[in-house]
């Protein structure tokens, strides 16, 4: 057998003293072949990104030096002097990151930034470089490469930026491309295109790709082999087909079970009277351009929403579709320009001042990022009790309610005395749900409430929301960009695009027989669709 392209042997990366575990990566061994896509999968803190950084020599300086071997083209990268290593990084090994817009320098034109790689590593003339860059842009299928050369990063979309990054990474024909969650920040349809691009690269250039992701759907789309990591250790490694369909390790099985699947179920029976009726909601954002040029964005454009007691309506759309703006209009965190909102039979849209504050108990919201949704200087108990206290309950009674709610959302009642930073992301989201439910609202808005969480935690929070809904019978407006997540919990799904609801229906109908092209496009872009069909068929 020939040498693998990249061999990581017994790699360990320590953590600074005082961390929750001694090693970020512990005794990791894996190989990457030419023309192979190896997906490294794991949840937050599994050490998947740090292994990649160690390979590239990009570890944060506060970490101790990694031990073990990273062998590439017969040389141990970890033992090379820094100058040698820098030469390899960028030319033979290249890396792309999650936030492409943050990697590009906003004050330079795209062409200059990509051309810089050639200037540093080759002796080509300006015209030759330009030609090379244009060719690369064509290869990563950027439309109008000539125009993009002259553009500034802010003029490109997220997907275009990521293509530019990939083009830069490919500039010097690297043998290995390390991709660290390159599609996580992108919309599904864009993600599908980038994934296809990865497959093309493997095909046309024989590049070895180390693809880091948390999403098994993505894995199913592109992986040849899969490595599953947890707490810095390798749990399982093997061919994609085997790991995805016949996992050996319990942890892999757990993870796979938690992956949300497109589930074409029907709406639940026995729903109550309407709790939310929104008619003709419209919100226009007017921006002033630099030289007085007016920009008008129809964020929400004449949208009607009806939601009944005990029902969950999913609002699905890509970034900028207006789904969050609609939610903020419904809960009156921003005022709609037009439209009527009725919540639990009472007018809500036209209220002002004290009447509005009083009515706010009927509708509550759970935000996306559990790390910023809680006041860092307020104890958890106080946070949950705050709503009832505002609405006239005695502090002691409200604290009792808070403790009961903490137990109901699966935390210790003693958590009431602690502060948000002592909890994990999932636990914080439970606290946010408890805070929202403390007022016993008739309508709960979940704005991307599980999007920032790991799949296993995501599944738990979705279960918690469903369970709470069963108990308290609130209507839930569930906003997400992920059709798979929506399908798990929603009775009906509304697809939004450019401020309008383009299609609405029960998952049973929407997934099986979508009417609009855009819905079809969204469905086709869901990563790992085919694999899940296979899996379901095999499991009966």
């Amino acid at each position, binding site marked *: 057998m020939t040498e693998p392209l990249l061999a990581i042997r017994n790699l360990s990366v320590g953590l600074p003293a005082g961390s929750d575990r001694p090693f970020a990566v512990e005794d990791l061994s894996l190989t990457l072949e030419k023309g192979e896509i190896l997906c490294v999968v794991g949840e937050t803190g599994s050490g998947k990104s740090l292994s990649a950084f160690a390979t590239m020599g990009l570890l944060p300086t506060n970490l101790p030096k990694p031990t073990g071997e990273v062998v590439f083209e017969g040389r141990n990268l970890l033992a090379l002097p820094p100058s040698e290593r820098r030469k390899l990084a960028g030319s033979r090994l290249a890396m792309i990151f999650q936030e492409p817009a943050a990697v590009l320098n906003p004050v330079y034109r795209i062409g200059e930034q990509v051309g810089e790689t050639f200037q540093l590593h080759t002796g080509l003339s300006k015209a030759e470089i330009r030609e090379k860059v244009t060719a690369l842009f064509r290869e990563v299928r950027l439309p109008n490469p000539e125009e993009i050369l002259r553009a500034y990063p802010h003029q490109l979309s997220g997907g275009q930026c990521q293509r530019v990054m990939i083009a830069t990474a490919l500039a010097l024909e690297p043998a290995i491309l390390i991709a660290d969650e390159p599609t996580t920040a992108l919309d599904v349809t864009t993600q599908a295109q980038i994934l296809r691009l990865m497959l093309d690269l493997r095909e046309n250039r024989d590049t070895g790709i180390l693809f880091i992701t948390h999403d098994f759907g993505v894995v199913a789309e592109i992986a040849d082999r899969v490595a599953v990591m947890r707490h810095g250790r390798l749990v399982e490694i093997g061919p994609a087909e085997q790991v995805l369909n016949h996992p050996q390790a319990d942890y892999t099985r757990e993870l796979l079970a938690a992956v949300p699947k497109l589930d074409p179920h029907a709406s639940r029976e026995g729903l109550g009277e309407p709790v939310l009726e929104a008619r003709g909601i419209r919100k226009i954002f007017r921006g002033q351009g630099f030289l007085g040029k007016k920009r008008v964005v129809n964020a929400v454009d004449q949208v009607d929403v009806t939601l009944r007691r005990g029902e969950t309506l999913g609002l699905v759309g890509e970034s900028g579709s207006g789904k969050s703006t609609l939610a903020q209009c419904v809960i009156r965190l921003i005022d709609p320009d037009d439209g009527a909102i009725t919540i639990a039979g009472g007018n809500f849209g036209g209220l002002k001042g004290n009447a509005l504050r009083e009515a706010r108990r009927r509708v509550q*919201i759970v935000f996306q990022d559990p790390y910023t949704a809680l006041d860092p200087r307020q104890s958890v108990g106080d946070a949950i009790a705050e709503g009832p206290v505002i609405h006239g309950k005695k502090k002691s009674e409200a604290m009792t309610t808070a403790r009961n709610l903490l137990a109901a959302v699966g935390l210790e009642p003693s958590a009431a005395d602690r502060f948000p930073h002592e909890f994990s992301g999932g636990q914080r989201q439970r606290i946010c749900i408890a805070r929202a439910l403390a007022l016993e609202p008739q309508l709960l808005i979940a704005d991307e409430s599980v999007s920032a969480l790991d799949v296993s935690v995501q599944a738990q929070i979705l279960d918690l929301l469903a369970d709470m809904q069963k108990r308290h019978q609130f209507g839930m407006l569930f906003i997400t960009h992920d059709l798979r997540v929506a399908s798990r919990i929603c009775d009906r799904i509304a697809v939004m695009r450019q401020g309008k609801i383009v299609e609405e229906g029960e998952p049973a109908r929407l997934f099986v027989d979508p009417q609009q092209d855009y819905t079809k496009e969204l469905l086709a872009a869901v990563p790992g669709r085919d694999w899940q069909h296979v899996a379901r068929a095999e499991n009966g």
Partner: protein
Amino acid sequence: MKKRLPVSVIIAATVLGVIIFIAIIGNVFTPYGVTEQNLLARLKPPAFLGGPEEYPLGTDRIGRDMVARLVAGLRMSLLVALAGTAIGAIFGTTIGFIAAHFRGAVEEILMMIVDFQASLPFILIALTLLAFFGNSMTLFIILMGLFGWETYARLARGVVLSAAAQPYAKAVVALGARPIRLYTKHILPNVASALIVQLTLTFPQIILLETSLSFLGLGIQSPNTSLGQILGSGRDYLSTAWWISVFPGMLIFIITLSMSILGDTLRDRLDPMLKQRNT
């Protein structure tokens, strides 16, 4: 994990502590009163330069003990600076909160006033007001309070705007809280660190301002005294009795320097941006 404090900070804190201690109880130990004159012992040099033993730091032009003068001046300077800083901080912060809450026209007008004050040399405003309204202790302290309020207003407006955009603030609004509850219970505690740092920056500036005005004779008036006033009273004797000006000058220098060092450290500790970069 807390890093150990650098030596400079420990020294600065100790020096400030000693100075404040002296300002509070120093007069108990001085044998002479602040206004006690001894015309036979005028302009005597400090004891270590051959002056009389009973005046360790010498005497001024009408034979008052420099030690007693300095203790009294120190106390007055610190009190005025403290009152001025507090007034400016509370007033400016309130204006900032109001601007951030109401936005629109209210914000525009308030920020215009802020820009207006920021673009005029404050000493000019102070001189004009003192000339118009005559000198009084109350007016003087109010003037000290007016100094620097615009920096608090600007700072507070900025940090409040960004804090109010945080999901936790929105969640509190969605619970039905009144604005006053949102601002006092949630936003103020979260932005306090930035304001406290600003406090340590304006405090030395106010001491310097008090010094300049008193030096010009428009600040603290006899029989009260302050470091600036003592310094100013020595300006005619710089070549013959330098100690009258140099000792208060040194005290002012030490206070402002120590305060600045402490302020820098506080900013490093409390600034959330810097904190993020370190972890």
